Each structure stands twice: as structure tokens, then as C-alpha cells.
């Protein structure tokens, strides 16, 4: 493995984006950052600007108002970067999947590295998802798709 790739996997700084979330996923993301879960042992840190970030934790169905700002946040994050969709809403729109006010999930707006479903997802699930996006732990479930009839 390349030494710089190793450094990227050992030091991931996340930026937390609220894209119209109801605050439930935000509270769970803050739970992950508490001393109880101790993400600092994996080198994960919360930063306060996308210019410093390696991963964007996006919560919420992407509302039409926030779409432009979300794209600006994505473009101001320097490469290499990961986009992680946290919660049912950013995974597929949640209960707002066909609302006129949202764009029905993060996958319609940005290239997403990993989806973490749940309403809200447990802190362990968020931690596992970030570790899986970095390739530190194996995948546990297969991708499933459902069509509306």
C-alpha cells in the first residue's frame, strides 16, 4: 500500500453537513464524537470547515434550498474526499422521497461513497459505515433495490 494512502486511512477528518435533516441524525453524529465512542483512536476528527475535511457526513433529504450550498461545500473540499450519507433521508429520501421540496436523497446530487440507513442510525452503525468506507472492516449486507409499483 502507498504510504500516503495509509496516512489517509489513519487520519480522516469529517465535516458534518445538515442537508435538511430533522436533527435526529445530527444528534447521533454528535454521539459518535463523544468520549464514549472515542473516534480519536481511529484518527477521526470533526473539523469546522470543508477546506480541512476528508469526509462529508451528510444528513437529511437534500432540500431544494440546500442543494446549491451542498454542491459548494462539496467543491470546496479538497480531493481525495468521501461523501457519506447518514440516515434514511439521505439514503433514499426517507418519508420525503416524493416531496416537491426535496431531491429525494443524496445520491441524486453527489457521488456517494457509502450509505448508512436508519432513522436515526445508531452511533455504532455510523462508526462502522465510516470504517467500511475506508476499507477497514468488511461489508455485512448486500445492496437491495426496490421499485414502486
Amino acid at each position, binding site marked *: 500500500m502507498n*504510504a500516503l494512502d495509509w*496516512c489517509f486511512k489513519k*487520519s480522516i477528518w469529517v465535516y458534518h453537513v445538515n442537508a435538511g435533516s430533522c436533527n435526529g441524525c445530527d444528534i447521533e453524529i454528535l454521539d459518535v464524537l463523544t468520549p464514549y465512542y472515542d473516534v480519536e483512536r481511529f484518527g477521526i476528527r470533526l473539523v469546522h470547515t470543508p477546506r480541512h475535511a476528508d469526509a462529508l457526513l451528510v444528513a437529511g433529504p437534500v432540500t431544494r434550498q440546500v442543494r446549491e450550498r451542498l454542491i459548494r461545500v462539496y467543491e470546496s473540499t479538497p*480531493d481525495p474526499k468521501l461523501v457519506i450519507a447518514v440516515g434514511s433521508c439521505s439514503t433514499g429520501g426517507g418519508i420525503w422521497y416524493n416531496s416537491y421540496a426535496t431531491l429525494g436523497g443524496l445520491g441524486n446530487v453527489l457521488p456517494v461513497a457509502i450509505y448508512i440507513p436508519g432513522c436515526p442510525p445508531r452511533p455504532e452503525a455510523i462508526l462502522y459505515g465510516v470504517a467500511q468506507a475506508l476499507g477497514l472492516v468488511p461489508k455485512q449486507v448486500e445492496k437491495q433495490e426496490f421499485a414502486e409499483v
Partner: protein
Amino acid sequence: MNLADISLAILYTLIFPGFLFTAVIGLLLTWVDRKVTAVIQSRIGPPWFQPFADIGKLLAKRMILPPARKPLDFLPRLCWQLSAPPWPR
């Protein structure tokens, strides 16, 4: 001043009390600070190579520059910084 003096001066400047030693010991002391904080909070804390991994990652990140930049844009900042030296006057 012979060659040995000059090479010793370069060694002092670059290696031992100079740039390399202070950089490594400074990074390790930031790790000690974070580890002590972690132990006080009853958690494990970062591994010892964490500051070095951070530096390596930041070196590998792509640089973003504002599109309307000019070379003299940073001159006022430089003048302001030079007008406030860190030593007492």
C-alpha cells in the same frame, strides 16, 4: 573557520537542536497532549503516529486556490504580520 566548523553549524541548524529534531519532538508532544486528555476522559486516545499520519495526509490533499488570486494579494497580510513582531519592543 574550517570545514568541520561549517558542517557542525549546518548539523546544529538542520538536525539536532534545529529543524528536524524540533519538528519531530513537537509532533510527539502534541500526541502526548492528546493522549493525556484521552486518559483523563477514560478513553484510549490516538496512536503515537497520529500527528505524522495527519501531516502525510495533508501533504497528499490537492491544493485549492481561489480563482481570482494575484501574487500581491498576500502582501497586506505580510506587512501586517511583520509590523507586529513576537518579541517585546
